[in-house]
């Protein structure tokens, strides 16, 4: 079936089998391999994408459900080869080790900060509670999200 949606700011049209999951469409047909598949059952958050401003799991969405939606993957964050302040904060804070959870973590944090510009630590931990990280113990991820929030708040002042 033909699916039309907006992917990282660009309108796309893709012919795909209806049973295709969004994660497979992104990775295998659109070559956007930043979206990872961990468990394939909604329990790890590695395949988190943003659909119409809301985080969703690309392993539990069929490609057909993206029809007419605005979709952001990790590839859609950087602008003219510049990383976002949030991505820079993840690097500065050492929030990345193996990197497998990172795209989902960053997109989850991106959606959080869009709604809650200065989240509390509890709000950050709650927001990323659906994203498993087996390397960092979460502390550096939480600190990096705070860092990004505070840097942005500083710039606004």
């Amino acid at each position: 079936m033909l699916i039309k949606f907006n992917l990282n700011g660009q309108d796309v049209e893709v012919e795909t089998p209806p049973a295709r999951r969004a994660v497979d469409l992104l990775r295998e047909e659109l070559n956007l391999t930043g979206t990872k598949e961990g468990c394939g059952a909604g329990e790890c958050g590695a395949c988190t994408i943003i659909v119409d401003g809301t985080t969703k799991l690309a392993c539990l969405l069929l490609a057909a459900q993206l029809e007419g939606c605005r979709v952001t993957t990790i590839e859609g964050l950087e602008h003219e080869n510049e990383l976002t302040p949030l991505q820079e904060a993840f690097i500065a804070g050492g929030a990345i080790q193996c990197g497998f959870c990172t795209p989902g973590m960053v997109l989850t944090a991106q959606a959080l900060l869009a709604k809650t510009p200065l989240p509390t630590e509890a709000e950050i931990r709650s927001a990323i509670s659906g994203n498993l990280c087996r390397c960092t113990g979460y502390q550096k991820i939480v600190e990096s999200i705070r860092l990004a929030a505070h840097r942005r708040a500083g710039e606004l002042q």
Partner: protein
Amino acid sequence: MKEVFRPRTFSELWQLRRQHENAALYAGGTDLLVQMRAAKINPQTLICLERLAEIGRIEEFNDEIAIGAGVSQHHLLENPTILKYFPVLCQALQALGSPHIRNMATIGGNIMTASPAGDTLPPLYILQAELELRSQKTQRRLPLADFINGPGQTGISPGEILSRIFIPKEPVFAGHYFEKIGLRQALSIAVVSIAALYNISTERKITAIRLAWGSLGPTIVTLPEVETFLIGKTLNPATLNAAATLVEQQVKPISDIRAGADYRRRVAGQLLLRLDQPANYRQTSA
């Protein structure tokens, strides 16, 4: 699987169901797509209900609230009306899955999945929720407790869908409590859960109480004898310990990969002791 349809109106849905009698229905997909991936089911046709506007609303009436079956758990949690009238449901929603799961999964899906561990079910039982089931030609309403027959088994008839969930605003309870014991905080399946609604007098006598437990049996467990025992007694640890013993005598949980039966039985009783914590008893606006 060959086709996916996304009807926007009931008339589109009824037409699709006539054309594809064996189609599987889903809304959030957080359960169905996992089963499909595990090759437990292989429907040829899917009908996705996420864009069906008629089941996507929350409506307030004089004496009840109607929740569309397709309302996501996230939207329920964000809704001030739901928080005002049904804190126990919001507490359960906060414990359900993860933020991403709650963005996708729907309240109707949690009911239709009919898992003994479904987090919204114990609150919906004691809130005495009623379900509206619709088909092209019929519409009926029945209590949730009469609809769920066992794990994954409901009283839905061919051609029907769960359209709305009705919850009465009254009686008003000042005590609302839900707790899930799982193996971790987020993304866990309940080992045991409890939902409670209760009122106490100024002398701390229990004047009304409703209790329901999840993951203790094939469906949600209610224990009218325990409720009767508690009515009129003073809310204190001695009363609750006595009630906990009654609970342990009456429930027959199973052992499975998550916990043993003895542990489940003991926790089911001990969770009652939480009702003595003042934080769980608040004056609601009503």
